[in-house]
């Protein structure tokens, strides 16, 4: 064990290490299911933009909407539509003040708020035709994260770990990190394993201090005492095992060894001293900001790369919140100020390390925002947009996704989807496909029923596949 710690601290590439030590069962004792066909994606970094980013101010330019700024919407479009807060009768269309340009060889539209990401247009598959039916945050987020708007179901990361296991011997297969303004509506449900066994749940990591709960030894216990403790525990467990022969004891022994390894691997993970300054600069790690959100999110992006590099199967980074009911212009700029540079740097970094091909990067929220300005009662002026599940934008890159393309089209004011609709279930089916699964076959029996991520829906979006 001690030699292994030296091995790590000598800085030998952890990827090589992970493959040398490839393990069958991740940090979990459950057997894994294995893919149905060869996966293109081996790992995923899901950038979850909580709150509903405004698509027509970032990815989906709508000149007609700008033209109609201040006009009412045709009644026909509003029939049967539900809003969280907007009062239908007096709502007016709200144009976007952003300027758009075409980027990359593919000529992908992006707004002036995305100066860094736009350099990666040719890596990205932009889906402008996402849609769902959930117009409130938590049901929407649960739908995006678990495939249902209800609590109690496993998140995508749990499904993928359940299906594939994790090659990491020292770190959890599923990690969540947060940069939170107002907190997450679902709290720990956002990385829950639902009805899957709890070893498939995401582990919440901090990006400083002791990254995992209970990772650090109690303050009076020195490292040598901890090591001796685990030796003694395992020795006594072995004696017990030889006596009573319960296989759970063997798992317990293995898990104490894994826990001990994690105690050195996790602090090593968040120790960025071996990363070059230029890279930290590229991620924007040292940007000064009052709230600390900029550096926190940048750090999380860099840690996401370090995690997947060390074998973690699924990383979710939450950035909260994009919920701009008012002050859209300034707050959206704040969000992109926080996230544009680190996200672009992450893509670049993955690419340079040859990881992007097998790392799926997904960027998106739970829904988009209305082309209508939000005139919630009590608002003096209209400066924001309400929740809009009928069309929104999500992008993906790497991991077997065909970059440099824009999929789908919304109508001229950006209300509904006109071409190639992609429901959240379709997105999930496609992600599972990239990981080598037929989404109809990856099931888990609970309360007498075989459940799957896509419930009874979902079709793979072939256009997305490389």
């Amino acid at each position, binding site marked *: 064990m001690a030699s292994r710690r030296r091995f790590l601290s000598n800085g030998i590439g952890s990827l090589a290490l992970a493959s040398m030590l490839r393990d069958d069962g991740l940090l979990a004792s459950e057997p894994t299911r294995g893919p149905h066909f060869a996966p293109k994606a081996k790992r995923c970094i899901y950038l979850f933009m909580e709150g509903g980013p405004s698509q027509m101010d970032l990815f989906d330019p709508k000149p007609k909407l700008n033209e109609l700024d201040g006009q009412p919407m045709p009644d026909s479009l509003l029939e049967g539509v539900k809003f969280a807060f907007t009062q239908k009768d007096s709502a007016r269309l709200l144009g976007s003040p952003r300027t758009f340009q075409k980027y990359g060889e593919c000529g992908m539209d992006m707004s002036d708020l995305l100066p860094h990401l736009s350099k990666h247009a040719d890596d990205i598959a932009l889906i402008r035709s996402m849609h769902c039916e959930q117009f409130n945050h938590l049901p929407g987020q649960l739908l995006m994260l678990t495939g249902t708007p209800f609590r109690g179901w496993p998140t995508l990361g749990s499904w993928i770990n359940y299906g594939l296991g994790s090659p990491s011997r020292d770190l959890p297969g599923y990690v969540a990190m947060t940069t939170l303004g107002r907190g997450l509506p679902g709290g720990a449900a956002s990385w829950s394993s639902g009805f899957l066994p709890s070893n498939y749940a995401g582990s919440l990591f901090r990006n400083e201090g002791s990254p995992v709960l209970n990772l650090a030894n109690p303050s009076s216990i020195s490292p040598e005492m901890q090591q001796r403790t685990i030796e003694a525990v395992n020795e006594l467990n072995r004696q017990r095992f030889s006596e009573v022969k319960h296989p759970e004891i063997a798992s317990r022994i293995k898990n104490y060894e894994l826990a001990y390894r994690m105690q050195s691997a996790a602090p090593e993970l968040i120790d960025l001293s071996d990363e070059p300054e230029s890279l930290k600069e590229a991620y924007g790690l040292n940007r000064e900001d009052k709230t600390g959100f900029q550096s926190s999110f940048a750090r999380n992006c860099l840690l996401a790369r370090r995690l997947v590099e060390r074998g973690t199967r699924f990383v979710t980074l939450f950035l909260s919140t994009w919920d701009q009911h008012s002050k859209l212009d300034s707050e959206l700029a704040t969000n992109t100020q926080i996230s544009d540079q680190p996200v672009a740097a992450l893509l670049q970094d993955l690419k340079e390390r040859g990881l992007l091909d097998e790392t799926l990067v997904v960027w998106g929220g739970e829904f988009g925002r209305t082309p209508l300005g939000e005139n919630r009662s009590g608002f003096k002026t209209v400066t924001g947009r309400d929740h809009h599940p009928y069309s929104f934008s999500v992008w993906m890159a790497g991991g077997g996704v065909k970059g440099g393309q824009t999929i789908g089209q919304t109508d001229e004011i950006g209300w509904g989807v006109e071409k190639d609709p992609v429901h959240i279930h379709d997105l999930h089916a496609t992600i599972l496909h990239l990981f080598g699964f037929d989404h109809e076959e990856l099931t888990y029996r609970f309360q007498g029923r075989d459940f799957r991520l896509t419930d*009874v829906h979902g079709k793979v979006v072939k256009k997305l596949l490389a």
Partner: protein
Amino acid sequence: MKLLSTWLLPSLLLTGSQLIAKDADHWAFQSIESPAAPYFSDRALPSPIDAFVLDRLQSERLDFSPEAPPEILYRRLNLDLVGLLPSPETLAGFLEAWQRDPDKAYAAAVDELLASPHFGENWARHWLDLARYGDSDGYLGDTLRPWAWVYRDWVIEAINRDQPFDQFSIEQLAGDLLPDATQDQKIAVGFHRNNLKNTEAGADRELDRTRRIVDRIATTGTTWLGLSVACAECHDHKHDPISQKEFYQLYSFFNNTTDSDVSVRFEEEWAAYEKRRSVWEAELTKLETALTAYDPDPPASEKSSTTWTGIIPDKVEAAGTDLAIQEDGSILASGKTPSTISYFVEAPVKEAKTITAIRVEALGSFGEGREQGSPVGRGKDGEFVLSMFFPDLIVEGKARRIPVTSASATHHDGQDVSEAFTSSLEGWRVASNTYQTQTIVFELSKPTELPAGSRLKFSLGQKFGTGNSLQHFRISTSSESAPFEPTTETVDPRWAALRLPIEKKLANPPAKPDSKAQSLVEVVGSERRNAFIHERGDYTRQGEQVSSGTPAILPPMQPAESPDRLALARWLFSPDHPLTARVTVNRIWQHLFGDGIVRTSDDFGTHGDLPTHPELLDWIASEFQRNGWSRKDLIRSIVLSSTYRQASTNTNPDLPNSLLWRQNSFRVPAETVRDIHLVASGLFEPKIGGPGVHPPLPDFVAAVGRSVKWPESKGPDRYRRGMYIFLKRTVLYPMLTAFDAPDTSAACSRRDKTNTPMQALTLLNDPVFYECAETLGRAMNEKHGANIESAIDDLFLRCLNRPPDAGEHDTLLSAHNDFAGFSKDPELAMIATTRVVMNLDEFVTRD
């Protein structure tokens, strides 16, 4: 699940009745027989249970394992029945009795544990998994449920008094509908209040209502029928004979059931209140006596020397508060108390006159006897601030400010009262608990003529905040010349000083208990809804209308005109019902063996596991019914059996244990992991019931939900059982989650029993567990000093309830020596040694 695509086709080909015909043979739908136990002429078996199990074992040429050693048996009984560890003293008592007569000692231990109040806690915890108990709504906001625990405590109490399971169930499904429903029955029906509720602003309320009903059907199905009824929500059940229509017939039972919080009276709480009340009365009487001894009558008042004429307002206005003009022209504020406020008062000028000063009286009065007086302001303790006072003269619709030059007041609480006409937050401030009328006089810059027919308007602003506004006030004017003294009616200060504490007492009587419980009631009259099939489970797509009814595959209900929830609950316990008794005894068996006789304790349908011992299951189920559904009798009969009392040693690792040739060994449930640490360390606080507690939680865990508050518990509440940890659904207690406590989103019939490195980290480093090791280690060091060998024996006894063998002893001693060498601190070395024992697999395992 092969879903619609594969299911739709066959269902189109088969009619409902054919479906039923196909599945009618399924074992679980057959009525429960009471089979005779196999007879063994050559073996004395303590229980018919053993005859069934042995018969099956012998058919495979197997036999029982030997009985477990007494200390293991006793530990097993303690963990299974009360979920706690025995103390070394009770263990010693048991072993002593065992020496005299093993069977008698064992039976006595069983009875003692069944009678322990902790029995109800342990078995309530199992039940609460089915009830998906939580202390918050779940979803965004995750609103707290301050009274959820009242239901939880009812479960504990009902199990402790061994309420027959049929009554226990009927009260939870339909307690509100029982004739003359008691308080307990209304609390019990809170079972179905425990499910998630989405209160997010703008959420689809009808969707949430339907989801909650679907959950109630699913939970009822899992809990009593052992069927995945909710699979038929969107289409006919794929493999069990329940049609979509039948699902909505069940749905109809709950379609007119609505949330209702009921007031409950806890005698203990009222006794405490009565006690506080009598102390309060005594204190009040003492104060009254002092006043009476001085002067019982309110003193006469002095009058001001200046002549003041009260205005007679005809218009008063304030946003958020009610202002009323009194007969004497004064103005009384009532209703809500906004933090800040402006009062506007207008009065007509009937005859022309010239005024020189304006007076505002903040009217207060002492009460008489037990009647409370009224303080001058609306602040929490009767204080007020008048931040702004602006008089205007309105002539022919045009308002003109009347300039003020100075102000003086009877009482000013250290403030410069002139701020009252120079616009600031402060101004005229009168301290709390002032019951005497106070006045402020504003001297005008120059005498001001008021023409007949003009109007006076006064703006009285309170910008200070916290609701410190005037309560009752009067405005007057004077035409005399300066100086103006802000005199007021004064009372004898000595009398006032004696009356004031009485007023304070009267203002703060002990609060009456106001406990509530989450209950359900039935909607009556025209508000009742009809139930429809929801096409593909979408509530907006109404299909055929349905009425309440139960699935045709099961025995029919008692005929009734309009069967209600009570009829549904009673139907579950009809003598010929094939499922309820089987499902219930199977789940109890599961808690005593780690696995049920039907391993899928949540699914007795055609895709569930078959029973390993079908005749045994039926025999126990029929006994359960015959014995009046007594949970304790059932548990007693199982734990007294030889089957239960076998050793768990896995002498044949290649042989699965579904036939029960040994006891099972399994890791204890999450809450028990915590509880046994607390018990072994001596930190355990055994208090039963009451609101949930908040043991320490790291900020970064507590902060992930929205608007999360985790008010850390102090004192003994930190050491309560795991089942009392406040169950906030967006911030589940990480230690419990790590050991597979369910997330309470749905009924949980069987917990996972995972084994993970996160559990290892938790057992090693969780501050609570370290504190336990520290406490026990210190105690061992104090008790045994340098005698490490006896400390090791003691540790084993406390944590594992058995002495160490030689190998274990040596291993631990050698570790201890190393710890002592590393730390040079005997106490720390003993703590580290204790920590080793508390991290052993055996410590968290029930063998």
